[in-house]
């Protein structure tokens, strides 16, 4: 099997995987990075949302070969050590999470949105497709706005 080397949450990692193995499973099953969650495997639920070179991707449909030499950030790599990212802080303040399963993906999607636009409108927030089966959307919206204000 081929080896792929990439930056993962600030560290260089090498993984031995088939080229077309979805990154989600390279992360979870081979590298033990379990923050990105499986919810559908086909780019629908967005629970696995992570970043590739700073942009939101869905690792469940991203072949591992595609990230070679690039920089992958999962929820585990968002905080700066013990210092949480402002979006994570806003999530805590609004007490967003219920079961929490969608939240790594929601937070990574929100961070990517705030990178594109520092002051998102309701319509832009509506474009976030991430499913939250527990129904935390109201608090997610508030948290994104609070994080935008803080950043």
């Amino acid at each position: 099997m081929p080896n792929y080397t990439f930056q993962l949450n600030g560290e260089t990692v090498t993984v031995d995987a088939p080229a077309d193995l979805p990154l989600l499973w390279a992360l979870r099953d081979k590298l033990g990075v379990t923050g990105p969650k499986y919810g559908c495997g086909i780019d629908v639920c967005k629970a696995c949302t992570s970043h590739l070179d700073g942009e939101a991707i869905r690792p469940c449909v991203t072949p591992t070969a595609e990230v070679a030499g690039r920089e992958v950030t999962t929820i585990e790599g968002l905080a700066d050590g013990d210092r949480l990212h402002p979006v994570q802080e806003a999530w805590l303040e609004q007490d967003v999470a219920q079961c929490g399963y969608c939240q790594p993906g929601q937070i990574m999607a929100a961070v990517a949105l705030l990178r594109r636009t520092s002051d998102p409108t309701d319509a832009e927030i509506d474009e976030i497709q991430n499913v939250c089966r527990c129904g935390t959307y109201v608090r997610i919206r508030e948290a994104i706005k609070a994080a935008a204000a803080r950043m």
Partner: protein
Amino acid sequence: MTSLPDQAHPDRTLPGSTRPPGGEPTPTHSRRRFLTYLVAAPTLAVAAQVVADVAGPATARALPSLPAPAEVLDLGDVLILAGKPTEDLIVVSVDQRGRVGLALPRAEVGQGITTAVAMLLADELDVPLSSVDVTLADARPELVFNQLTGGSNTMRSVYGPVRRAAAVARARLLAAAALRWGTTPGALTVTDGVVSGPGGRSATYGELSAAAADRTLTVALAAPKPTAQQRVVGTPTNRVDARAMVTGQQRYTLDLDVVPGALPTMLRRPPTINGTVRSLDNEAQLRAMPGVVDVAVVRTGVAVLAETFGQARDAVAAVQATWGPGTVDGEDDASIRRTLRAATPPPLAPGLLVQTVDAEFDFAFVSHAPLEPNCAVAHVTADRAEIWSPLKSPIVAQETIAAELGLPVSRVTVHVVQGGGSFGRRLFSDAALEAARVSKATGRPVKLLWSRIDDMRHGRARAASHHRIRATHAAGDVLTFEHRVASVETDFGHGLGEILTSVAASLPVAGNLSFAQTVFLTTVHSPYHLGVTTQTLSEVPLQMHTGSWRSVYSANTRGAEEVVVDELAAATRRDPAEFRRRLLKEDRFRAVLDRVVQEGQWGRRMPRGTAQGLGFHAEYKGCTACLVEIDARDPQDPRVTRATIAVDVGRAVNPRGLEAQMLGGLTDAIGTTLRAGLHVVDGLPLEGSYSQFHYTRQADSPTDVRVFVVDSGEEPGGAGELGVPAAVGAIANAYARATGTRPRSFPIVFPVDFEPFPR
């Protein structure tokens, strides 16, 4: 674990707990005596037990005239009653670091119960919330009926026992300090887990825990703090597990690294519900695929074990098998609907001089679809088994798995893992059982994942139902209200049947009712005076994978009734808010209705194609009103734009968590009322992902939502399911007013707007 009776005393603290001489018992649960136990442990560990509990809720109610059974004894009361003999086995411990611990025999799946229980402990023991660790207990068969998470019942059932045990633990810690310092406990105070006494002396709980565990210590009676003295309970509090969740550190079942070498495992399932595997036709080819480690045929399909889930998924897709038929192969939506209609009794003929409002409703199947799919880790060896899974009824899981494997129950360890949502789904242990089978068949530890497609098609769903409602009225008064429900059989085979049997003598229902009918009658009741009220359930025995879905029968049953209440108001020319106000049975019901009418500006002018709608619901000693505004200018693309909710569950342990539950209920109602359901074709649901099962997304969610918590009592009522039915009614009513239609089939917008995945 050995225990030692420590003290016995009547609970003297709760107002209303005394029995007036010669009078009827008052309707609290506290007319009992309590025993507390010191549990043998290296640190202080205390449990509280109820003894001589002759007065269950069944006999302790002031009965309104002609109450529905659920108003006498609801399903939550049933669970409390059944769990009573073992509720003492909830143990509070204080260790030598001063940490307070409790292994909760319930499942956390997002409802925030570990936070709420930690709040009870922090309040009672005067320690910071950060000193409390609430974990989830493994299956404990000795708890019998007291380890089932359902019926919105966790806080109702543990509120007393947890606080009582904590109060005794605190009393022992104080007694130990008093003895050490030669003073009395009354002279001591506690702040943040530090006991202070005369002369500036102080000691931490950690320093006192060993002395407090000494059996020879004499302790005065201890009872939980009265409501007025609670400082943490009743205060909006953030989740104790929130940080783990936002940093990706929260470990769900398949994130666990508990069995070295446990292999990613998926199944290929038959093309119809309950189909069978006749033969696997390409085993050698599967075994040769990259990463595949093992293949096994089990009852529910063909299992593939691989190095990664990605490889297991590829191999599962390549399975060639010959399948046997399932249990509902010829069924589809139309045939099921016909069967349900045929099973719905006709309404009674109305009297001569009355007018009628008639309505029939259909509700589709609805997947539970928790975002974490069905999953389990299993390690089965020749003489024992160990299982990890999100399980709301772990004792039944343990018994079922033991029977399946031919092992004694004591050889099967079942760990309850915090789950990624449930909505009723985790009452069933089908993933755990399947994982155990695969582990046994292959002799390997497995990590089992159901694909999303399987979770929607072969997982469980709220049963489809048909409803016939007839109300009669004359001269502006409602005379009768009759509601006949027919539903596809709901599976209660997760232990509830045994629980109902155990308390059969106390149930307020008579006759030869099925479990489902008993559940129906102990959950559904009308909050209105609607004259002679009849609500019945008939079940159609189609063998599908069903299970109670947040609010069990009430989302459909009460949701439909709220629609008819609006139509009755129109028929008698009254405003829907005023009509409800006049007919609601209790003042606290009117209080939450008035709150949303006022805060939500009921009756304000709305542009054409948009409208307001109201809904109300009461269950499990709680009540809520919901006012929504909808934009249905395009009737095929409606959006709820605003929602105002008021909720009263009695004592709101964590108002912030309660608000989250109401937001969840609203979101469920938006999905299931407007767009989310399953189409059944040739014995299988078509929907296989959230792109097809249209559960609410951010773009469907209102931008303006306010929740008002009214704290009205001494004891908590049920909160987890309360929010759904009122919101279903409010949304349907708003849609009706905005579009000038009468919604009768739910979800309202329900086309097959996708290409189904192959079977």
